[in-house]
């Protein structure tokens, strides 16, 4: 009975929230053709799909981890897909380092705390992805390189000041910036695609805008993130205006560690590539002409992501993900071999329970 009640209540709450968002957005629709806060674009811009010919790449990694008694074992596989298009038709697909890659087992530092474990795992993954991206750019000279996830490390990846994994973090940070340089040097545009983003930057900017034109109240915007709002605001084939990654670089935990050349120029927009999927957050490093770059980037992202009406994500990243994906069984081989070699002492106590 309790469960039924809970389900009922939860459904109502969610429905109500969605309904609120929808109504709120309805009222915001007139804003779409209004000049946006960036002063050069409207709130929404129409994406113009263009034929693309050339190379583009995408990198993704898969990982699984398993806890040993006093350290963690991670299995990671990072694969880059390089597509050669001719008039928007895929002609050739290549892979780096190879289409079928054996995953790499990594033993994390021992003695990590719980938060450090996750960060360490994430840093290992990020390091592999960024390095792979650099290698791809230097080898294949793609015009675009897609990154799964943000164009910069996330806040939760940053360890505490006193953490023993700070070195890894800094190394990753440097690697990211090296990536930006390599990309710039090789005229490769880095594009990050984030699905299921929980960002609020657009909402922040909208709130500021609405202070002068209160079409809706601030409460109406509460409880909604950018994706939720824009899901109703954007139509398929539309994007938002470009905006900066953060309003205050100096306060941003990651960007403040970046060189200014990069921190200042990270731009973001959302685009809707499918009728029935949430908008996709796209991040890139602008070289100056933000609108033009955004148009170009949104065009290519839209072309690659508008294939399925219920799922919008660039095909190249889907492919890279497929190649890189790991499952739990993959790590078992390594784990089992270790247990065989070292005996039960490596196992977590909970895994040694005799009765299940």
């Amino acid at each position, binding site marked *: 009975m309790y469960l039924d009640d809970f389900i009922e209540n939860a459904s109502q709450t969610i429905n109500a929230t969605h309904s609120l968002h929808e109504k709120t957005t309805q009222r915001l629709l007139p804003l779409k053709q209004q000049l946006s806060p960036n002063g050069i674009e409207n709130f929404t811009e129409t994406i113009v799909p263009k034929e693309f010919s050339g190379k583009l790449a995408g990198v993704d990694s898969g990982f699984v981890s398993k806890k040993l008694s006093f350290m963690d074992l991670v299995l990671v596989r990072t694969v880059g*897909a390089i597509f050669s298009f001719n008039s*928007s*038709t*895929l002609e050739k697909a290549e892979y780096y380092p190879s*289409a079928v890659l054996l995953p790499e087992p990594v033993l994390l530092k021992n003695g990590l705390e719980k938060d450090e474990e996750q960060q360490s795992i994430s840093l290992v993954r990020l390091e592999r992805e960024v390095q792979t991206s650099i290698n791809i750019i230097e080898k294949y000279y793609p015009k675009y390189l897609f990154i799964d996830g943000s164009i910069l490390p996330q806040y939760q990846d940053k360890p505490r000041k006193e953490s023993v994994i700070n070195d890894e973090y800094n190394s990753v940070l440097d690697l990211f910036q090296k990536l930006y340089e390599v990309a710039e040097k090789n005229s490769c545009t880095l594009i990050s695609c984030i699905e299921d983003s929980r960002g609020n930057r657009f909402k922040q900017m909208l709130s500021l805008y609405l202070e002068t034109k209160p079409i809706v109240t601030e409460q109406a915007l509460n409880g909604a993130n950018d994706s939720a709002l824009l899901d109703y605001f954007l139509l398929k084939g539309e994007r938002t205006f470009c905006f900066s990654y953060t309003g205050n670089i100096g306060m941003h935990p990651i960007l403040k560690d970046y060189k200014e050349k990069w921190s200042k120029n990270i731009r973001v927009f959302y685009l809707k590539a499918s009728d029935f999927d949430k908008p996709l957050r796209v991040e890139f490093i602008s070289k100056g002409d933000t609108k033009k770059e955004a148009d170009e980037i949104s065009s290519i992202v839209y072309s690659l992501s508008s*294939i399925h*009406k219920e799922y919008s994500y660039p*095909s190249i990243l889907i*492919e890279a993900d*497929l190649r890189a994906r790991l499952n739990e069984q993959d790590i078992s081989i390594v784990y089992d071999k270790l247990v065989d070699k070292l005996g039960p002492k490596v196992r977590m106590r909970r895994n040694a329970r005799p009765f299940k």
Partner: protein
Amino acid sequence: MKEVLGTVVSTIEGPSPSRIDFVVNSGKAHKGMFVELVYSEGTMIAMVDELIKTNRYFERPDSVKTIGEELEKNFPAADWEFLIAKAKPLGVFTDKLIQRSTFPPSPGAKVYVADNEHIKKFLKLDEDGMNLGQIQFHDVLMKPNLSKLLQKHLAILAMSGAGKSYCVSVLLEELLSRTDEQGQIAVIAFDTHGEYTCFGEPTKTHTDFSSKTRVIDARNIKLSLAKIPRYLLDKFLSNLTPVQKRELFRIISKLSQEMKSGVGPFNINSIRAEVKELEPKLATALNFALDDLERLNLFGKIDDPSILEIAKPGQLTVIDLNGLISQKKKQLIVAYFSEKLFSARRQMRVPPFALLIEEAHNFIPESTAAEHALAKSTLRTIAREGRKFCASLILISQRPKRLDVTTLANCNTNIILRITNPNDLDHIKQSSEGVDSNSSSMISSLRVGEAMIMGEAVSAPTFFKVRERTSAPSKHETTLEESAKKFASDKEKQDDEIDAFL
């Protein structure tokens, strides 16, 4: 250096001694193809009995439908295609012997297309064997050894139109082409539809077998009353009472005795002359029975032809039953000659022979009253014991389900062409251990001219394409359109003649 076809993968089911799966790396694998791999036990030969292609991009039908053409434009879908071949190990052979598979190969073992010589060796094909066609997917002729093919009897099973008459014609060509050195047997064919009479017609456009073929119109056949086995006549005259039969047999016995004394053979009239002297009621009943016999126009003083004339090494004798309407007459002819031939063979009076029976299910049905299956007991006996005396059966049927199970089971080699009737397929599965559900599904998908051979003749069920025949085709093979056109033109001619006459 042989090209690797694929690599054995590990699955829940294998690799095991009875199943291996491998991913096809290069080239093509086909269902029914032979593959081999070398491992610790020797060279394993396996047959691919299933092929599955997978592709992650096409796993969800809704996505495939939604994305449509864009899928291949945007994704390297082709790169995700994998061909998994499921194969059944057939045996392992070394230089010395061939044994069954008892130990699995390792995952990762390299799989190759089976070598032609290995296939020949494994299947025990014979250079001097009967060229029935080509093994599918391999450059190897299906040449089973004559003895292995026929000695323990052969059944050719297929639905109508699947090409079994064509296959039989190829078999007959091979038998007729054998030389003395290779060993020639006599072939006697009971041809229900006149499909093999073409062998007896001289031809310049095809291989001429007419000098080795004798065609006998069953309407002209005469059987010696004195030589008809009593049990056959007994079954035939089922309308007579035991007393009447006894009297009739007594007369026949007496006439036979007189015949041996020098009076010479007797016919129905001779029996009538003796019946005249019996008590009237009895005489009447017997006369009715004799009338029935006479109406068949089948009985005479001597056999014509006799078995010594029809069983000659290297000769095909086609007994054309096509002109007969009476099923009883057909039954009697088949029963009589089978009995006589087998008896003569036991006494070594005739050469080794093969008895070919079309529509075998009519002559050896599973469950029919004795008087409607006169030949059944003789043919069953031949099926059971014929191999000791080199008297072979070649049974041809499109309704295996209706064929006597025991006899079919005694046919140690089967050539199966297309069969789709599930009852027939089940029946075959039950009577042949070489047919499992995979083979069964392959049988129903065979095209015309493709066949599976299994049993004594080959050490593993094998698919092959029946070779092209060199003999002239049967003139009975006419299409409906041609037949209709001919009828119309004949009618027109007839009408013209009538008009001219009038």
